[in-house]
């Protein structure tokens, strides 16, 4: 009996669980209006088409956990994606694996630089990344030199996003691997817990011997690395590299985290939350055209849904707190 109660309490107490409920309700409502939504193919399409945002959400989780923010990620992505595209276009590198390594390397360097400026130069993350948002985007334009890399130039590279292993698309596999790695690292390893520690109480972390500056550096480097990876993925998925790739989409990534219950002041948030948050956004994007909302109103509806979800989160949290208080004996 007591066990049962605590299980129930666990569910109502956990943000992830309440998000899961939101997610399920969303899915049911959408399936009622559009039966094709719940098919395997539709879901696979959705995951593939949102993989880039979903992967970057992981990096952003780390950044937000230590109380930082990174609004340069879409620019980093464009820079690395464009680099890969240009390398292929001019036939300098053709090997898909090498190209991915290059993209990841570029992203890692971009992130490392940001991390250095933030952790060593003590520049506030929003300012530093705002600067780099302009810089990396500008670099993407400069290396593009008014050229795009298109399907024709991308040879076998674009096949990566088409291929599959055991029926699961490569892109989705990459995403799942990222999620599994993050899940394990954040929950089961020292490094992951250090990120939580720094975000929860930086001073304490310092005193207990954690090199907070290095954790900060690491988090931004990982963010950059993932953005770089996503640059290559995006080029492969859409068979096209353009310097304005994912312009402004960093906000979607941040929104996905916040919807998933990641605190913007640090210390709170989980991989499961990031997954649910980005899934909710992906579902909204997928469903809006399916359920037949007027095209012109789609943005408004999207905005309203985001606002409603975050406000609902607060309200349920308040109700939960209140219930907890009721339970406390006087």
């Amino acid at each position: 009996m007591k066990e049962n109660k605590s299980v129930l309490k666990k569910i109502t107490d956990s943000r992830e669980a309440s998000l899961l409920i939101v997610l399920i309700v969303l899915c049911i409502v959408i399936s009622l209006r559009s039966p094709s939504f719940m098919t395997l193919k539709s879901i696979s399409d959705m995951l593939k088409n949102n993989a880039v945002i979903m992967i970057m959400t992981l990096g952003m989780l780390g950044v937000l956990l230590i109380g930082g923010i990174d609004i340069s990620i879409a620019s980093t992505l464009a820079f690395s994606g464009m680099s890969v595209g240009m390398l292929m276009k001019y036939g300098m590198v053709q090997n898909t694996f090498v190209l991915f390594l290059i993209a990841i390397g570029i992203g890692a360097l971009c992130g490392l630089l940001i991390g250095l400026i933030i952790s060593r130069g003590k520049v506030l993350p929003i300012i530093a990344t705002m600067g780099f948002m302009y810089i990396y985007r500008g670099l993407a334009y400069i290396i593009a030199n008014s050229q795009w890399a298109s399907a024709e130039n991308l040879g076998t590279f674009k096949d990566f996003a088409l291929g599959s292993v055991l029926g699961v698309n490569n892109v989705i596999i990459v995403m799942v691997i990222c999620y599994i790695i993050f899940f394990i690292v954040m929950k089961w390893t020292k490094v992951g817990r250090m990120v939580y520690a720094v975000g929860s109480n930086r001073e304490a972390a310092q005193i207990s011997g954690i090199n907070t500056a290095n954790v900060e550096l690491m988090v931004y480097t990982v963010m950059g690395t993932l953005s770089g990876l996503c640059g290559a993925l995006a080029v492969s998925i859409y068979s096209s590299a353009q310097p304005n790739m994912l312009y402004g989409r960093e906000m979607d990534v941040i929104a996905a985290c916040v919807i998933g219950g990641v605190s913007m002041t640090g210390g709170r948030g989980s991989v499961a939350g990031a997954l649910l948050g980005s899934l909710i956004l992906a579902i909204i994007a997928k469903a809006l055209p399916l359920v037949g909302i007027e095209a012109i109103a789609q943005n408004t509806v999207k905005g309203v849904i985001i606002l409603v979800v975050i406000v609902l989160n607060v309200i349920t949290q308040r109700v939960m707190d209140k219930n907890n208080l009721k339970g406390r004996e006087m």
Partner: protein
Amino acid sequence: VGCGGGNNDSGNTDSGSSSEATDDAGGDAEDAGDEGGESGSGTYAIVTKSAGNPFNEKTADGFQEVIEAAGGTAIVKHPEAPTADAQVSVIQSLISQGVDSICIAANDENALQAALEEAMDAGIKVCCEDSKTNPDSRQVFVNQAGVQEIGQALMDAVLDISGGEGQWAVLSATSQAANQNAWIDAMKEVMESDDKYSGLELVEVAYGDDEPQKSTDQTQALLAKYPDLKVICAPTTVGINAAAKVLQDEKSSVKLTGLGLPSEMAEYIGDDDDHSCPYMYLWNPIDLGRLGAYTSMALVDGTITGAEGDKFTAGDMGDYEIVAADDGGTEMILGAPFKFDADNIDEWKDVY
């Protein structure tokens, strides 16, 4: 440089024919027809819609080539963002520099009016190319292809590809994009106008906001919603690219046409089942830029004023006449849209 895209291309026009064409414009015109001369020595600016876009770049290249050949100075300006706001700053800057003319591809029909009026007040000649401003803020519009002609060409393509009947859909950029809407409306008109289109059913106009991800979502939604869909027509370069990729990857039986860049679409154009797009249309951006340059020069040296009925010779591109445009202003038309198919795509994909 290939310039065969424009159907108006009448081959190597000699200078004689050009003076013929401009005989009503008097002495100034003589100079203008005189392959450059002093008239070309001014400063001519072209303002594109956005940076980093090969189409815009080719237009600018065409523009620059003509101006420089005529001995003038060409200024190519890309705005910092693809918005009218950003173009206002660009125009203001050009006024400060005291250029002789501005040839602009407007990001918004209306929002450049104040800036362009100011430019015209300052004695700067203003013409538009690619996408126009309202008549108050231009002297003439260099139209890449008539709206009517584009609508007709696309509609016929849909008819042809669908085999004469069935469901089709449009994948556009944003629901607010003016030229997209004009073309879509033109297609609808064409469809009403003749019985041969009666077997076609336009099921939806979807909008991908010129974002690959959203366009992909929209294409997939179309496929899911309409299992009997036969053709998608995407009169936007980003949209057609995303749709082509989706259809080709899924080996869908749905076929695609629309307006797209040959370099971007080369992979998808072909007659067989392996390719999603049998053919599509576009105009030649280089010629568009060249015509913009000739028009700018003609405006500056007074050969034309932008009034209906003005005629001039655009160097080796031949003669052009200014006609009334639907919006009450004037325009000249580069030519009919050019068809890209399996036969010619290879020679075009490296051009733009």
